[in-house]
């Protein structure tokens, strides 16, 4: 193994490169990324960057000198366009093919958009630094912002924009935000926080189209005919894996790059981060996780696998979200739960604790306003696949 090629230069790709070097790998590492910036962090885009607390330079994942010290063949602003796993080469736009011995696919996801909204002035996504800077520029007191999608990102932006004096309307297709992912009580709790922060929320609504004038958006028309005037519209309706460049490669793509428990998609080809759908034996299921911590952990696991240290990748997924000054944290695999049991919900004290059951086992926990240290005990129970009844007996005494 002389040459590792990593496609995708965000958290997952960089972690893989860094872990290879820390493990003593002295061969060539090519890191290809389609964004021109040095690798930067995305969670602060909807938080500190948008609120103006941080300037963009604070987003750097590593100081430039640390990246220099990794001795990478770093190709930024370069888009991978194809893959030939027989010849073991990556095709890139406007450059010669890049051969590899080991390939890491870490091209992540992009923001989902409503059809026919590309290039319309005043319509935003929030995935990249330019996205965030463009939106930030527009958040001025008295302006009207409609956010389509009341997931964690949409809600984070809603609270931030509202604090900047923007009139915010948050649209949700379900009857309660977040219900499918983490249960109705979490959605109701978050709704309460957002109301306190002056955000208007409309649930059970479908967007029919944008209203436009002169090439720009002027608002959103709902399916019932209501028009919500807006100066800006943010699409926060989830993401799409960037797998197009893998078409025809022979790799299996199915809502992400399908990988085994070692994160391998084929001999010498691995998936890392938001794009990878791998089998997590700890939960006995395939998962694709768009969480910041997973990108780094998976990059480290893949670096080990490339160097011959094969161990199944079995993380307990973790995410956090800052909502109206309250930190939400969750461990485990919440999405496919059979039951979301509310153990504590005190909106006045801004505290919430929900445990998640799948079959007869504890698979997750979500907390808001609760000491992160206390939550680690829950993580241990989830990691140990604790039976539901036993977990509740331990945690409710």
């Amino acid at each position, binding site marked *: 193994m002389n040459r590792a090629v990593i496609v995708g230069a965000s*958290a997952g790709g960089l972690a893989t490169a860094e872990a290879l070097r820390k493990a003593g790998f002295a061969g060539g590492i090519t890191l290809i990324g389609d964004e021109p910036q040095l690798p930067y962090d995305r969670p602060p885009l909807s938080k500190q960057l948008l609120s103006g607390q941080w300037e963009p330079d604070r987003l750097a994942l590593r100081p430039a000198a640390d990246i220099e010290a990794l001795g990478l063949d770093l190709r930024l602003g370069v888009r991978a366009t194809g893959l030939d796993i027989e010849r073991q080469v990556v095709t890139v736009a406007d450059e010669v093919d890049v051969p590899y011995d080991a390939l890491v696919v870490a091209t992540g996801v992009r923001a989902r958009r409503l059809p026919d909204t590309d290039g319309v002035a005043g319509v935003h996504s929030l995935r990249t630094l330019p996205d965030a800077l463009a939106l930030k520029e527009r958040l001025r007191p008295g302006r009207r912002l409609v956010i389509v999608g009341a997931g964690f990102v949409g809600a984070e932006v809603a609270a931030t924009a509202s604090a900047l004096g923007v009139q915010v309307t948050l649209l949700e297709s379900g009857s309660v935000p977040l219900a499918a992912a983490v249960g109705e009580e979490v959605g109701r709790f978050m709704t309460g926080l957002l109301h306190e922060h002056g955000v208007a929320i409309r649930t059970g609504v479908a967007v029919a189209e944008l209203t436009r004038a002169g090439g720009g958006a002027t608002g959103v028309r709902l399916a019932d005919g209501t028009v919500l005037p807006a100066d800006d519209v943010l699409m926060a309706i989830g993401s799409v894996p960037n797998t197009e460049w893998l078409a025809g490669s022979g790799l299996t793509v199915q809502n992400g790059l399908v990988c085994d428990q070692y994160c391998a998609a084929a001999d010498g080809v691995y998936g890392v981060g938001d794009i990878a759908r791998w089998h997590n034996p700890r939960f006995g299921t395939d998962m694709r996780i768009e969480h*910041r*911590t997973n990108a*780094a952990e998976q990059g480290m696991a893949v670096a080990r696998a490339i160097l011959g240290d094969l161990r199944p990748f079995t993380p307990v997924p973790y995410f956090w979200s800052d909502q109206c000054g309250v930190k939400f944290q969750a461990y485990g695999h919440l999405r496919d739960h059979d039951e979301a049991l509310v153990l504590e919900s005190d909106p006045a004290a801004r505290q919430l604790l929900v445990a998640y059951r799948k079959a007869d086992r504890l698979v997750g926990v979500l907390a808001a306003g609760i000491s992160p240290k206390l939550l680690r005990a829950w993580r241990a129970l989830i990691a140990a696949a604790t039976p539901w009844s036993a977990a509740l007996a331990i945690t409710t005494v």
Partner: protein
Amino acid sequence: MKVSVEADKCVAAGQCVLLAPEVFDQREEDGVVVLLDETPEPQRHAAVRESAMVCPAAAIHLAES
């Protein structure tokens, strides 16, 4: 090895405490990182490096001689 942390970047994920509990802790109230040992013993270096790599806020910095 000399360890430093940027507390104002910390997102309280606690990944560092899981990996290197002798070197990192969290504040009770908000989970923000507390550095217990600025110059950890060599046998802890691997875990500390892993903590720095996995930190989701890139808030752990290492100076290695």
